[in-house]
């Protein structure tokens, strides 16, 4: 479904909207159904009580007739499914087709387990009967039918409102989706246009470095740093753009070697900022990973550690059997910023350039391979990034 094509923020907005919308709608419908069920149940029971009342009137008429005839044998009026009994003014049992163990005299009609009981007061006391108690078994079928209908109603209404919610949610996030798409299109176009000139600059710098003994070494290095920064930015943006369609080739990568290569790649940048580099890499550490994923992860971590470091600061890169640790002596991150720092376009510090996509890429790689990713930082002191596998 189209939900799978959404960005994390879009999904979050949609699910928040659906959560509020569906929970409030379900609560409203549930309450309405409960009230409807209670009302209808009352009506059904009342209708059955009315039948008891009608039967009581019939029995009373027959008792009156018996009183008039008063023959030696009085045949008690008894018709299934109703049972009845007569009581005198002191509520003592006279006769009946049943003898209830317990009666609630202060109620005219009530339900006891599955029996409906109606107490009909008589006056005058024909045959000495002051009360006529009529009872019948509660007909559960209409109540069961009502229950089934209520449940069906909740289920059907639930399905309908869930679908409606998805449709409304889609409309709701449409503007956000459009703005994200236009931003992505812009990045795509920009990166495409940047690719050729960056490649040309870097190739020519390498050629000039190899072929000519150039006098402006410092200026050349600056051009190289700037070009590499642009090149990395291009790689990152391409990676994000192609992430879903990119065919990964998982292979055993010499992670120690790869780390040495990437540190070498950033060497110009490290030297330019006069950062003291301390490298402590265990020998022959390998990981089952796509090489490009590994490069993007390491490049972004190193780039951030250099970019957000002090001039003449420290940078420690440590690799063991189970973890990669990169620690710098940079400006640090505020405690409240740490949990948001991995979100795309989020930057804790705007003093340096960038789009704020670096840790988003690292987060994606880490998630894809099931690694653990932790950031420890003391604001204005240092930041430590730890990846364990």
């Amino acid at each position, binding site marked *: 479904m189209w939900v799978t094509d959404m960005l994390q923020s879009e999904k979050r907005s949609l699910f928040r909207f659906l959560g509020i919308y569906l929970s409030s709608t379900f609560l409203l419908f549930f309450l309405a159904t409960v009230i409807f069920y209670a009302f209808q149940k009352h009506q059904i029971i009342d209708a059955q009580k009315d039948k008891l009342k009608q039967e009581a009137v019939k029995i009373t008429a027959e008792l009156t007739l018996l009183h008039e005839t008063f023959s030696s044998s009085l*045949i008690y009026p008894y018709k299934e499914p109703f049972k009845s009994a007569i009581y005198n003014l002191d509520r003592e049992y*006279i006769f009946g087709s049943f003898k209830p163990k317990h009666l609630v005299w202060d109620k005219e009609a009530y339900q006891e387990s599955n029996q409906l009981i109606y107490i009909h007061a008589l006056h005058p006391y*024909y*045959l000495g009967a002051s009360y006529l108690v009529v009872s019948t078994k509660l007909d559960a079928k209409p109540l069961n039918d009502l229950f089934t209908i209520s449940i069906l109603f909740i289920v059907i209404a639930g399905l309908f409102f869930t679908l409606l919610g998805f449709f409304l949610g889609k409309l709701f996030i449409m503007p956000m989706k459009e703005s994200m798409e236009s931003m992505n299109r812009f990045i795509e176009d920009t990166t495409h246009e940047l690719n050729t000139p960056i490649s040309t600059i870097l190739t020519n710098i390498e050629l000039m470095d190899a072929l000519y003994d150039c006098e402006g070494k410092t200026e050349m290095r600056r051009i190289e740093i700037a070009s590499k920064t642009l090149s990395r930015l291009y790689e990152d943006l391409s990676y994000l753009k192609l992430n879903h369609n990119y065919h990964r080739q998982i292979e055993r990568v010499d992670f120690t070697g790869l780390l040495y290569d990437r540190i070498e790649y950033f060497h110009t940048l490290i030297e330019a900022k006069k950062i003291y580099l301390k490298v402590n890499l265990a020998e022959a550490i390998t990981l089952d990973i796509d090489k490009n994923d590994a490069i993007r992860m390491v490049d972004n971590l190193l780039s951030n550690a250099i970019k957000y470091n002090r001039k003449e600061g420290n940078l420690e890169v440590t690799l063991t059997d189970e973890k990669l640790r990169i620690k710098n002596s940079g400006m640090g991150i505020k405690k409240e910023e740490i949990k948001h720092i991995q979100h795309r376009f989020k930057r804790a510090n705007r003093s340096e350039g960038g789009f704020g996509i670096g840790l988003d890429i690292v987060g994606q790689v880490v998630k894809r391979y099931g690694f653990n990713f932790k950031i420890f930082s003391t604001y204005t002191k240092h930041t430590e990034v730890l990846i364990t596998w």
Partner: protein
Amino acid sequence: MVKTVSIYIVFFFFLDSKALAQSKVEHRCMGCHIRQKIPSELIYRRYLMKYSTHKKIRKVMLAYLKEPKKENSIMPKQFFLKFPLKKAEDTNSSDLVQDIERYLEYLDIREKFVLP
């Protein structure tokens, strides 16, 4: 054997006491009622319809038998045009109470009812 004999004794004693009570009612109450054609069941029915319980009937019957007046009777005035007003009973109250009890037992509505 002893148990069976005991049960028979109790049963016959019960039958005998009931028969005795019935003969007493017939002797002391119903004799006059039958001779003078006074409708006992009609009177009982009227008492039932007005008072519902034997407890109340016993009380008002006792009051009437001690002082039989038209005002104390449950029956309509016209009834006494046809049937004579009873003379006051000279028996003591406990005998009278027992007679009323036997009379009510004799006519007891509960004994008349049957299920179809």
